[in-house]
């Protein structure tokens, strides 16, 4: 059996490959659609809203983007891994509530509450993941269940403990200033006020990109989303990968929750409902395939940035904020159409 013989049969494939232009390669990047969209949105609001281009506006837009972006990153990774988490929005509130109420009731240093909150939040994430991998039910159903349960628990427990729907202020408690510094401080760079969440956001995007593209776990994320059976057959720990992804969502929900707590001192227990969809939309606009196996962390950041620009741009343009939803819907449709087209192209010769 000579090794050269089969090459003749496959020669035509090489010729076909050589015709792949660099433009087409660029088009195949998951973030491309979102970058084009972001530029369009930026130009649009630069023209219609005079105050949009001011440096102070940039800080505001970035802050709005970062609060969404911190959660869009793990939600994007989870979506690449082929799953959803509808409980992500209220989990942020749960995390803030646990932290606040534990510190207040135990009159402990707020850092103790922050630690307990991390454990509880991670436990919820792992619960989602374990339930999903054990029962093999769709993640839509599982996390819809935990979403409703958490919504109820948030309100119920807060009323039970505090007597009202919001927590007591913990601003005068020990450790509050240092915790606020980490989760909710403000830095001034070149005359622009930037919230610390922007740093968290950039850090998380960088970390997630590293994990996705340069680690074994990243390779497994793409594999469990793109073909779980194929992945399992070559020895990828599919269940552990998915549980890890849910733990990632929980970890970022913890960061968001602590930001929420330490920027306002008190937490409204009914908050967070509906945000899970915003995170998912940011990830989809950023090029994540809703069916899994394709996408990027940077894309989710661009998606979150589009959210920030649209939300604040409408305010700067002095329009009725109701238009925001329309923009969002249009953006989502366009992004999904583009994604579908890319996938078809990628699998065209299958």
């Amino acid at each position, binding site marked *: *059996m000579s*090794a*050269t*013989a*089969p*090459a003749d*049969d*496959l*020669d035509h*494939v*090489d010729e076909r*490959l*050589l015709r*792949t232009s660099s433009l087409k390669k660029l088009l195949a990047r998951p973030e491309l659609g979102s970058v084009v969209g972001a530029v369009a949105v930026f130009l649009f609001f630069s023209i219609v809203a005079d105050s949009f281009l001011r440096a102070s506006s940039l800080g505001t837009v970035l802050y709005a983007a970062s609060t969404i972006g911190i959660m869009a990153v793990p939600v994007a990774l989870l979506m690449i891994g082929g799953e959803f988490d509808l409980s992500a929005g209220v989990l942020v509130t749960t995390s803030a509530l646990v932290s606040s109420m534990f510190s207040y009731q135990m009159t402990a240093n707020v850092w103790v509450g922050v630690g307990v909150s991390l454990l509880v939040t991670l436990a919820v994430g792992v619960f989602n993941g374990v339930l999903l991998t054990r029962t093999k039910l769709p993640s839509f159903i599982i996390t819809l269940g935990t979403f409703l349960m958490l919504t109820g628990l948030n309100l119920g427990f807060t009323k039970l403990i505090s007597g009202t729907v919001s927590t007591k202020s913990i601003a005068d408690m020990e450790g509050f200033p240092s915790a606020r510094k980490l989760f909710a401080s403000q830095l001034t760079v070149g005359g622009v006020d930037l919230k610390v969440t922007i740093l968290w956001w950039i850090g998380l995007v960088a970390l997630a990109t*590293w994990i996705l593209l*340069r*680690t*074994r776990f*990243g*390779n*497994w994320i*793409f*594999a469990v989303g*793109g*073909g779980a*059976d*194929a*992945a*399992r*057959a*070559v*020895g*990828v*720990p599919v269940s552990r990968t998915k549980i890890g992804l849910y733990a990632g969502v929980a970890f970022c929900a913890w960061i968001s929750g602590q930001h929420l707590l330490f920027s306002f001192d008190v937490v409204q227990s009914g908050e967070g409902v509906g945000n899970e969809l915003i995170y998912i939309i940011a990830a989809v606009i950023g090029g994540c*395939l809703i069916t899994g*196996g*394709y996408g990027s962390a940077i894309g989710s950041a661009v998606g979150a940035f589009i959210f920030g620009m649209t939300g604040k741009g409408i305010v700067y343009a002095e329009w009725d904020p109701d238009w925001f939803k329309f923009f969002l819907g249009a953006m989502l449709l366009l992004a999904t159409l583009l994604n579908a087209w890319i*996938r078809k192209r*990628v*699998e*065209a*010769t*299958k």
Partner: protein
Amino acid sequence: MTTASTTAPTTGTALVELDDVSKYYGNVRALEGVSLEVHAGEITCVLGDNGAGKSTLIKIVAGLHRHDAGTFRIEGEDVSLASPREALDLGIATVYQDLAVVPLMPVWRNFFLGSEPTKGAGPFKRLDVERMRATTRAELLRMGIDLRDVDQPIGTLSGGERQCVAIARAVHFGAKVLVLDEPTAALGVKQSGVVLKYVAAARDQGLGVVLITHNPHHAYLVGDRFVLLKRGLMAAVHTKDSVTLDELTRQMAGGSELEDLRHELERPSAT
């Protein structure tokens, strides 16, 4: 050249040996009393119609299901595989018809999936991307596949090429036994030929091969041993020199059942 291989009786322990193996799903008999031997440098073909138990057999060998009765030996050791990982660690690599690869991932990521090499330590432990790319290109070239771009999604390759990449992957990772599930089922004549050449190439490198197929022509081209399954039971066992292609085809096609079918289908005018 592929048909020229010898069918001399092999000595020593079989790489994989199934003895009277059965598998039940609830009250469904999926497989009963099936025996099979796979030797190094030989191709054992498992033939059967849809529902004959071919997939069940492959799932037992691949570690996806445990067998319920009988013995399953790998190099003489009794085993009961709990996971595909365990089968891989024992040197059994399985290439599935549909789920051999993850279509949206680049060729090189697919090639190393589940066994990625890393460099660095601690938080800087990372994929050795350069080595992964270079090794993929070199290994595919060694099997005769010349890909210019290992970065393209593997879904852009043809069905035959994808099977070949999966086979090259198994050979690279030192598999002793290669299990192929209908590698030629969805392929045209030319592509099937290419895949069969790689199957023979893997055999020539000393691997034991289990080829699952419902095409007796493909099986007879490369096979040394033939196991025919019918409705979960073993219908016949042959070695290359004890059976002709015509006989194999006749048995495979259902033998007397086909005769009956021919009578049924005959036009009334012809009688």
